[in-house]
Structure formats: C-alpha cells, structure tokens
C-alpha cells in the first residue's frame, strides 16, 4: 500500500507576511522527509495546513491523487493524517488510557487490545494507568504517537519532536520512526536541527522566508550545505563599518548560571563574555535555546549572583531592572504587546514604564503627568513615531510605531548599554531599516548594544562580535568579520 501526498502551489498570506509562497512538494511512503528551516521560515504554517488547522489561501493538497479538503483538524484525522505537535496535547491529571480513549470511538476492550498490540510491536513501555503528569517528556510523546497509531495513519507528521527529549529518548524515537517508515507510513519530520536531518531522513526540503528553497536527496548534502541553504548565502555581505570602538570594557559577565524550575524554560550554563564601549555583541541562535532567559538575566527580571555581572565597574548581578536602569542600562524585550508595553494604556503611560529617579515622573509618590507627557512628546518627535496624540492607547499604534516608541523610550535617556531581543521581529521593511539605523547610530556614539536575535541577517549587519547560544550555552565570541552564515548555521544547529 503506497501513499502519495502532494501539495501544489500552496500560498498563505498573513497581514504583513507571506508565510507560504507558492510551495509545492511531493512525498511518497517508505521514506522519511525532513522539512528544514529557521524560525519563521514557514514550516509551521505548512504543517498546520496539512493538519487542517490553517486553511491555505491558494493551492491544493492531494492524497493518492485524490484532492483533499482539510477544513479542520478532524478532516485530517479522517483522512489518516496523524500529527504530533511540539507541545503535548494531553490532560495531565488523567491516566494514559483515559487520554487515549477520549477521542477514540472504539470500545474500551478493543482499544486496550489495540494499544497492547502497538506497544508490543514497537517496544513501547508506558504504564496505561498512570496519570500523564508522572510521565517523562519522552513517554508523553510516546502517548501522542500511540494516539496517532491507533487510527493507523498513512501520514505521520512530527513537529520538532526532539526539542524536549534527552539524547537517549531521541535515539529511541528515531528507531521507532524508521520502523514506521518501513511499514509504509509516510513520515514528515519538521526540524531546524541539521544533525538530525542527516541521521534520520532520506530527503530534505529546505524553506526560507516562506519559500521552498530546495528539495534534495540526503546523500547529496552535508551539514554545511544544508546550513547554507537554511540561512541563505545572499545575506552575509552587508556589514556595519567598524569605527571608533574603544578598548574600554563596559560589561563583563562571569560564570553566570540560571537553573529554571519550569520544564519549558532553558537553563543557562556558565555564561561568560565581556563587551567594550561602542561595540555591538550579537547573540544568534534558534529560538528556545535560552535567549529569553539570557535577556531576563541581563535585564534583572531574573536576579542572579551579585558578582556575575560587572557593569561600568559596579557589581550589579543582584539588582532589579529599575535599579539597573539607574546605572544606565536600557532594555527592549522581545514581546512588544505583552511585556515591553501595555496595549490598553495610553502612550504616555507606557513611557512612564521606564522610570529613572532623575526623570522625575513620580514625585513623592505622585504621578507627575505633565512631566511624563512632555517627555513622551520628545520621544515621539525624535524617534518618528507616527502619531501626535500621546493620550492614544498604544494598541492603536502599528507594530513598527510601537517598537519605535519602545526603543525611543529606552534610548532617550542615553544609556551606556541597550539590550534588545528581536527588535525587528514582525516589522515591515521601513521600520526595520529605521531600527537598524538607530542601533548603528548609538554604536557610533560610543554606546554599546547586546543584540539577541533569531534573524541572522540582522546580526551580521549590526554586530561587531557574534556568539551563538545553543541549549543555554554560549559559543566562543567571534569577530563578526570572520563569521559566515554557514558557520552560524552549524553552530545554531549544535555543531562545532
């Protein structure tokens, strides 16, 4: 029984972003296919289209030459397409068996028999009567896989399945996947990890910025060639002119560690780096490798050991963000709408979030509204925020204008160091250029920047030094001139 899945000319446009641009692919059973790409390359959208979660604007899907209408996830299930998402969809407090029976229409006994057969066949050992919350991530994933197998799927899609697994669990998973493939299940494996593609897959499709870049046999590829395709070679040439960087050290991080209690967070291991005045340090990496934790540790949202951060010859590791601002640090977090600003509050109120003692926004505990408003007007005119109404709720600003407001709020006090995290994420080209120019300008004023970004293009354009974060560890700090996109791609994927 052969399965042939074909997608032709799929296009999906979101406001301000083409997620999938005329993507056509063909898959045949018996092989394991890798879908490779950076964050935001359009992999997830494509997968969501295949599992019925997202409906494409254009294009068709064929299963064994028959046209497939996927209007909802249940359509995908009916058509024997199984899907294991990155984050598990299990009820933690219910037992494994209860989780499996919920969306099954089989009799209790039949189902039990079926599950037993599956577990024996693939050598899975999961206790069916244990509540899911007691299982390890690997076991939870097995439950998800069993849930798909119960329906004897023709196609099994795995979305970044190893992001929560240990090495051991990963190799077990690979064995199972190879076995499924031998039995005729068509497997599509979504990932940004190059090593895994080389280990597991037969064919690889690379996506970048919503477009399909290449489809090739794995035998014709190696890690370097894939990294090149994934990151894109055309981007590495643009670089900032290196000027007046001084040798005066501004910030030094020594043996910084962070261990999280939350299993979805990444631990930071032995972070060490230093940065001079007027320099921009770019930190690359695929999202979820500890960037958000690193930002929080640097901004003081997560407080660490006092001695681990030395800024301007002061030890500030144990200070909170407000206290760090007094030492002339500024922060622009990744999440504009949920962290850097409050959409339901007026522009001038959002400006007051960055509050120095010397700014006099609050005198003796009272709000000094006229002072804040005056300051807000200054930001709006200096940073080209396209509005003249500072009483406007900030939710009515476009993403670009909101980001200008945030960057402006952080920079107008002329801090010595700006730490920003994905400052141009989701913005249009004009706003991106403006932000980039602004960042270059403050470097030229002998101020420093730590730029944490998942956009390699941006990093290569703005950074003087570059490091890559992978699983909470920073790579060696490299001079940006010596870095190629190829090298970055390998480091981001965990290679050497």
């Amino acid at each position, binding site marked *: 029984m052969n399965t042939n899945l074909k997608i032709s000319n799929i296009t999906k446009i979101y406001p301000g972003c083409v997620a999938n641009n005329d993507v056509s692919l063909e898959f045949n059973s018996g092989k394991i296919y890798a879908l490779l790409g950076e964050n935001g390359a359009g992999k997830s959208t494509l997968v969501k289209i295949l599992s019925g979660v997202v409906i494409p604007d254009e294009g068709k899907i064929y299963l064994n030459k028959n046209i497939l209408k996927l209007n909802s996830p249940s359509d995908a299930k009916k058509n024997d397409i199984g899907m294991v998402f990155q984050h598990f969809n299990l009820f933690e407090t219910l037992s494994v068996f209860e989780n499996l029976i919920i969306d099954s229409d089989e009799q209790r006994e039949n189902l039990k028999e079926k599950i037993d057969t599956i577990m024996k066949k693939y050598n899975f050992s999961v206790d069916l009567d244990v509540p899911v919350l007691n299982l390890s991530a690997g076991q939870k994933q097995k439950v998800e896989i069993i849930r798909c197998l119960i329906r004897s799927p023709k196609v099994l899609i795995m979305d970044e399945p190893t992001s929560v697994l240990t090495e051991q669990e990963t190799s077990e998973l690979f064995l199972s996947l190879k076995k499924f493939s031998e039995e005729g299940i068509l497997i599509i494996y979504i990932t940004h990890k190059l090593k895994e593609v080389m280990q597991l897959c037969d064919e690889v499709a690379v996506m970048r910025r919503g477009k399909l870049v290449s489809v090739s046999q794995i035998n014709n590829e190696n890690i370097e060639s894939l990294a090149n395709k994934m990151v894109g070679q055309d981007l590495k040439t643009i670089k900032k002119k290196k000027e007046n960087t001084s040798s005066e050290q501004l910030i030094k991080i020594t043996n910084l560690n962070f261990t999280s209690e939350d299993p979805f967070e990444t631990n930071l291991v032995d972070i060490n780096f230093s940065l001079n005045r007027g320099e921009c340090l770019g930190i690359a990496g695929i999202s979820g490798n500890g960037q958000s934790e690193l930002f929080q540790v640097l*901004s003081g*949202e997560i407080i660490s050991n006092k001695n681990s951060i030395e800024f301007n010859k002061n030890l500030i590791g144990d200070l909170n963000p407000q206290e760090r601002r007094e030492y002339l640090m500024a922060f622009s977090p990744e999440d504009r709408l949920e962290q*850097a600003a409050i959409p339901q509050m007026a522009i001038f109120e959002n400006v007051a979030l960055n509050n120095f003692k010397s700014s006099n926004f609050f005198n003796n505990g009272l709000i000094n509204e006229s002072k804040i408003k005056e300051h807000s007007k200054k930001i709006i005119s200096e940073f080209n925020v396209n509005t003249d109404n500072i009483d406007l709720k900030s939710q009515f600003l476009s993403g670009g204008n909101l980001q200008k407001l945030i960057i402006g709020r952080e920079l107008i006090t002329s801090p010595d160091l700006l730490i920003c995290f994905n400052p141009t994420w989701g913005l249009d080209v004009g706003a991106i250029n403006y932000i980039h120019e602004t960042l270059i300008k403050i470097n030229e004023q002998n101020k420093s920047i730590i730029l944490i970004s998942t956009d390699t293009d941006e990093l290569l354009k703005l950074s003087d030094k570059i490091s890559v974060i992978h699983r909470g560890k920073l790579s060696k700090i490299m001079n940006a001139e010596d870095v190629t996109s190829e090298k970055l791609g390998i480091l981001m994927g965990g290679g050497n």
Partner: protein
Amino acid sequence: MIKIVKRDQPSKAIFFFTPVLAIFLTLIAGGIIFYILGFKPIEALKFFFIVPIADKYGFSELLLKATPLCLIAIGLSFCFKSNNWNIGAEGQLTFGAIVSGGVALLFYDQEGLYILPIVILAGAIGGMIYASIPAILKTYFNTNEILVSLMLVYVSKLILDYLVVGPWSNPEGFNFPETRQFSDSARLPLLFEGLRIHAGIFLALAAVIISWFVFYKTYLGFQMKVSGFSLKTAKYAGYKGKKMIILVFLISGACAGLAGVGEITGPIGQLHREVSPDYGFTAIIVAFLGRLHPVGIIFASLVVAITYLGAETAQIFMQIPKYTGQVFQGMILFFLLASDYLLFFKFKFIGSKK
C-alpha cells in the same frame, strides 16, 4: 436582517451604557416574574423600588445598606482591577467584625473618646489579616485565590458562631447567641435623631476619595495598574509584582473589615450570628456594576441597596419571600454580563433588497 459584527475597539460610551441597560432589563424581567406570580407588574415594581425610599426613614435605610456595599466594592475594585479574584470579602467582613467586636467587648464597661478609633482600627486590621491568607498562599504557593478566599468565608462564619454561643456570649443574655452590648463609646454615632444612618457612611466616602486618588494619581496606583494588566511588564519595569498582589488584598480586606465594623458598631451594637446579609458577596456585583470606578461604585451601591429594601417591603406588603432581593441581584449581574457582549460586538441592520 440583523448581522453581528465585531467592533474595531471597545466603545467607551457603551462601557458606561451597559450597566444602565442591565438595570433596565432587570426591571423588565422582574416585571415579567411578578406578572407570572400573579401581581400587577408596575405596582409590584413600585413596591420594590419606589415605596421603600419614598420617605426620610426609607432614604436613611438606603444609605445604611449602601454604605457597606460601597465600602467593600471599593476595596474589591483594587483586587479586580489587578486581576486578583478575591471573592471572600464576606469572610473578611466577618473576621473584621470579630476582631473589632472583641476589642469593643474589652471596653464594654468603659467610656472614652479613644475607644471608637481603636475599635475601627481593629476591624480594618482583622480584615487585612484575613485577606492576607489567600494573598500569601497565592503569591508563595500558587494556590487559587478564588477557592481559598471563598472557603475562608465559611470558616470565619463558624468562628463567629462559636464565639457568640461560647466564650463571648452575654453572661446575662439567657443563652441567646449574642454578645454583650458594646458601650456607647464603641458605637459609631448616629447622624440624625430617629434614623439609623450612622457615621460609617463617612468611612465609605473617604474610601471612595482615597481609592480614586491612589489609583489615578499615585505611583503606587500606577504600579498596581501595570501589575494588573501584565505581571511580565511589571517585572520588566522593575516593580515588585508579588508585593502588589498582597497589597491589593490587604486594601480589599481592610475595606471589608471596616464594613464589618460599621455593621456591628452601627445599627446592631453587639456581635451576633448574622452580622451581614451577604454584603460581601453582593458587593462583587456592585463592583462590576460600577465598572470598578469609584464614582460608578457609589451609584451601583445605591441601586443594589434598593433590592435589599425592596425585598423587605415586598415581603411585608405582597407576601413575597425576601429572597426575591437576591433574584434581582442575580438578574442585574446576569444582564450586565450579557450586555457586555455589546462592548465587543455590534448589531448591524442590513436592509433586505427586493
């Protein structure tokens, strides 16, 4: 044809209009219920909403009932605006009443101007202590404040029960479940001869003004507002989010405790089993009907207070159980939540083409 369309932005006018609409719909629904019960709707509603406040005494009673509702709702507005769902104000009221009552009993045979302030302060502290339990459990142990604060209501009522029949019961009281009468110095003064309205109303008015000032004019209020919208932003700005949570609970507990003081040192003058006809729960409705705004809460507390009075008049003149009052309170909340739909959606009338 009518089509429902999502609004681009919540309408400010509708924001203040829906409470009025909710009250209007409640009146209509109330009229229908009275009709089904065999009363003339208009007349019944008149008994319910107009007769009780038609004279001086009635108006004093209205203010008397509105006072605790307003006070508690003001406190709750701090919690609700910052997304802390304290629904145990009834327990904080009861515990405040217990503490202030206990203090008042210490002075039962003494007179002096110093007594009343101590009694009032004790009530506020009692409410704060009781509200700090769900707050601390929430911030340090991630418990759900809704469950904890609600269950503590029943705990406080049982404590009160135990005290008034046991250790604190009046030795000369023939085993009635009540304490001694407080001394006059521990009582909130009455404002007018022959009317029950007492100085507690000034506490409520002070709370309204202070809360408006704190929330809209101070840095503390700004921090509470930010923490309520997003703890992540509060953390980023460097505010102490956990402290803010505990603080709003304390404010809310203090207000509820003061309401308890008002009840026992005002009209009642002693502790007994039922210090409050569920003011603490009804105040939740008041807080939302008043849109969590100090001025809105004043109006809302007056409207809801009528339902208490109306229920009593209706019981006397129409032989309807006084629990009808709760039916009306429930309907107000129901219609308010339902008409809040209009905040985010609007009806569009599309003319049919022929």
